[in-house]
């Protein structure tokens, strides 16, 4: 049995009927028609089956925790008073979307980090055995740095405010880490986290430079002070220095010139 011209207005109303969008009287009119027209009833059954099948099999997604954290961090960044606007992330003349796109470059980096970590974890485990003890710290730091680039691993406390990051470490680690404010020279604070390096809990403070991240590790090291020395592994740069009974490591894929500038500023601001 085929639809005839009289079916047309009902055909057009089938989706609205299915979605509960018709006024009661119109819905009743459609139902009455469906009871007598096999063709329209078949069409309606097909639509209803499609609706059930599609709505049952298309997932709703939950925003990942790390997305909520990044959004909140970006919002509080946006709310900061204009006196802080000398930072890289807040040049007023740039279009409003810039901070987000800058942050987004980060996600690409994080995604790349997963790929790198997948490849390098098998490599490093082989390589590790051949390293002598003096290299182990840098190997572990590099692994930690790469792991930190994976979504959700970068920060335990997301904050661009040094006065929020520093107290967060209280009671979690035996060192109260340095969290200098380097915003004004273009190294905004991203947050902090705890990590395990060489068998101990170590505070890590995270800074950003464009889409690059810098992880700064520190732990007690009762050896004499040492000025910064640099090494490179798998394309990542590591700078270490010691002062006041503490050993520091900065790890990043940032170019060495800017990483050196960062370290110099970090030391100067301590």
């Amino acid at each position: 049995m085929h639809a005839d011209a009289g079916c047309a207005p009902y055909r057009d109303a089938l989706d609205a009927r299915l979605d509960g969008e018709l006024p009661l009287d119109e819905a009743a009119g459609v139902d009455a028609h469906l009871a007598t027209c096999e063709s329209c009833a078949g069409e309606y059954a097909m639509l209803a089956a499609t609706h059930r099948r599609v709505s049952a099999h298309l997932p709703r997604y939950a925003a990942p925790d790390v997305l909520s954290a990044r959004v909140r961090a970006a919002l509080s960044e946006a709310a900061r008073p204009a006196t802080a606007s000398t930072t890289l992330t807040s040049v007023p003349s740039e279009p409003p979307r810039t901070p987000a796109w800058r942050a987004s470059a980060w996600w690409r980096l994080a995604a790349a980090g997963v790929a790198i970590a997948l490849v390098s974890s098998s490599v490093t485990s082989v390589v590790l055995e051949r390293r002598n003890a003096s290299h182990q710290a840098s190997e572990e730091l590099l692994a930690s740095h790469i792991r930190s680039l994976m979504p959700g691993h970068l920060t335990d406390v997301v904050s661009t405010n040094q006065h929020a990051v520093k107290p967060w470490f209280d009671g979690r680690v035996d060192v109260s880490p340095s969290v200098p404010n380097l915003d004004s020279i273009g190294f905004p604070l991203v947050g902090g986290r705890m990590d395990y390096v060489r068998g101990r809990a170590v505070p890590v403070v995270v800074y950003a430079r464009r889409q690059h991240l810098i992880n700064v590790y520190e732990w007690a090291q009762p050896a004499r002070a040492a000025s910064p020395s640099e090494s490179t592994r798998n394309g990542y740069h590591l700078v270490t220095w010691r002062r006041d009974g503490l050993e520091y490591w900065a790890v990043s894929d940032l170019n060495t010139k800017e990483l050196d500038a960062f370290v110099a500023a970090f030391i100067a601001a301590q």
Partner: protein
Amino acid sequence: MQQPSERSDVTEGVVDRFERVVLPHLDDAYTLARYLVRDEHDAQDVVQDAALRALRYFEGFSGGDARAWLLAIVRNCALDWRRRYRLDERSVPFDEVVHGPATASRSADAAAIEESEQHRVQRALGTLPLEFREVIVLREVQELRYREISDVLGVPIGTVMSRLARARRQLAALLHPDTREVS
């Protein structure tokens, strides 16, 4: 020392209100972004971009349906993203809809069938033109009313209805090729 800056307009109070009113809809925002740009990391970028854009427009938000308001911004950001990365030039071949799940569905394992069914529906959706795909997501996944869909898309309700009708019939043809009547 206050410097004139666009950013200084956004006070912490505004952000607090924004977080209360808008952020509860982050899952919806992320879901829409996932369907429009597909890749999960791209979707996160789009949502973060949308949140910042929404914060800037928040003063102009009249206090109506915050979810539809946010989704409209997410959609615009996703469309910008697609333009920027020329996503529309990459299409999913229909073959994948036909062949992809077919092998899996021969398995007797119920979970595999369920998974392949999900895969099949998602693939079918992926072959629809964007304007059909988004109306399906807004209605079938996010369960918006026609009025809300009209707000998100910025088109009249009549257009929502005709797009939804056509989108459903295309999906039906892809999913039930045997039962689809020849009109």
